[in-house]
């Protein structure tokens, strides 16, 4: 007997209470590595969301067939399969994004969010709840990456989603597009996120 899961709460938790980036600090490498612009962050987030949803579905479907001793390698193969799919689709249809994300596409395999959800949620729950869980977590990741990307692009380049907000030769903080800016921007965004959520939850 599986206890009834409140699907709305299941969905929301990934976005706020257990936000993978700001609260759980999972998947830090792509978070810091690709968010030089809002579009790159969004693209990486969507690619991860796709892999997360698909692998959660498959893991949840085959959970009773996999012996528990070999479950981790089995999950990794399932995840790697979908990552290869994403890699080939991006290369064929969005070559620009494929170039930008580079090494971080194959590295979705070792993104702890995906393996974490497969192990902690999909391997214990039914398919429908797993899909909701994956969408919640994935959206939390997409939102976090887009915000971080937009912040860095705005401060470093004076634009958001390639839409220029400053004059052509304005002095922007180039540092935010360079590697150190990723750490610094995420540090302050985490402070703001914690402040806001502590106000909401009390």
């Amino acid at each position, binding site marked *: 007997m599986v206890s009834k899961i409140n699907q709305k709460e299941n969905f929301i938790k990934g976005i706020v209470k257990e936000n993978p980036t700001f609260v759980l*600090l999972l998947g*830090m490498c792509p978070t*810091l590595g690709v968010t030089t612009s809002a579009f790159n962050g969004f693209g990486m987030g969507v690619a991860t969301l796709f892999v997360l949803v698909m692998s959660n579905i498959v893991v949840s479907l085959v959970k009773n067939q996999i012996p528990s001793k070999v479950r981790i*390698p089995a999950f*990794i193969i399932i995840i790697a399969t979908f990552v290869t799919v994403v890699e080939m689709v991006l290369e064929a249809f969005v070559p620009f994004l494929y170039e930008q994300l580079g090494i971080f596409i194959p*590295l979705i395999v070792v993104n702890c969010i995906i393996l974490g959800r497969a192990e902690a949620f999909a391997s214990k729950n039914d398919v429908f709840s797993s899909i909701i869980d994956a969408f919640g977590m994935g959206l939390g990741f997409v939102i976090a990456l887009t915000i971080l990307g937009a912040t860095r692009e705005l401060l470093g380049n004076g634009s958001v989603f390639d839409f220029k907000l400053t004059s052509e030769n304005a002095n922007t903080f180039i*540092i935010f597009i360079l590697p*150190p800016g*990723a750490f610094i921007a995420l*540090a302050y965004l985490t402070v703001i996120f914690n402040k806001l959520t502590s106000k909401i939850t009390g």
Partner: protein
Amino acid sequence: MEYIVILIAAVFVNNIVLSQFLGICPFLGVSNKVSTSIGMSGAVLFVMTIATIVTYLLYQYILVPAGLDYLKTISFILVIAALVQMVEIMLKKVSPPLYKALGVFLPLITTNCAVLGVAILALGLENGSLLKATFFAMANSLGFALALILFASIKEHLELANIPKGMKGVPINLLVAGLLSLAFLGFTGLV
């Protein structure tokens, strides 16, 4: 000469953690004490070098001739996972003191994206050869070690500092990493 350039580039200019963002999880997670970070660096040096040798040979002599190079992500991650297990078992048997020092870190390394990242990056080296790929992996793991040990020694001092409430924990660590990364930015253009 070429090898010196690879070494300097990997350790300082394109530091794997601070400018390429690979291996951030152990960088933030296993850096509370200098002694543990040295252990982790040793384990990474060991696994990264062996993993790159094996995956390089696998790619050049099996995947490419068979036209299966699109399977590299799946096969590399499996090879690395199996390798970590094997290294763990062998170390336990062959060198118990080394196992005691590195043992706890080994399972963590499977999900260290630096290992998979370097294995993939090593395929793209100019005029690549097995020797060069091996050297590239070792240089990168030294870069990882440098960043991790530096960060751990700063964090040890940070414990005594008076930090504002909102910045405690994760944010201050990220900020310190950012400043460290800023320092490494000064090496740009060295090679």
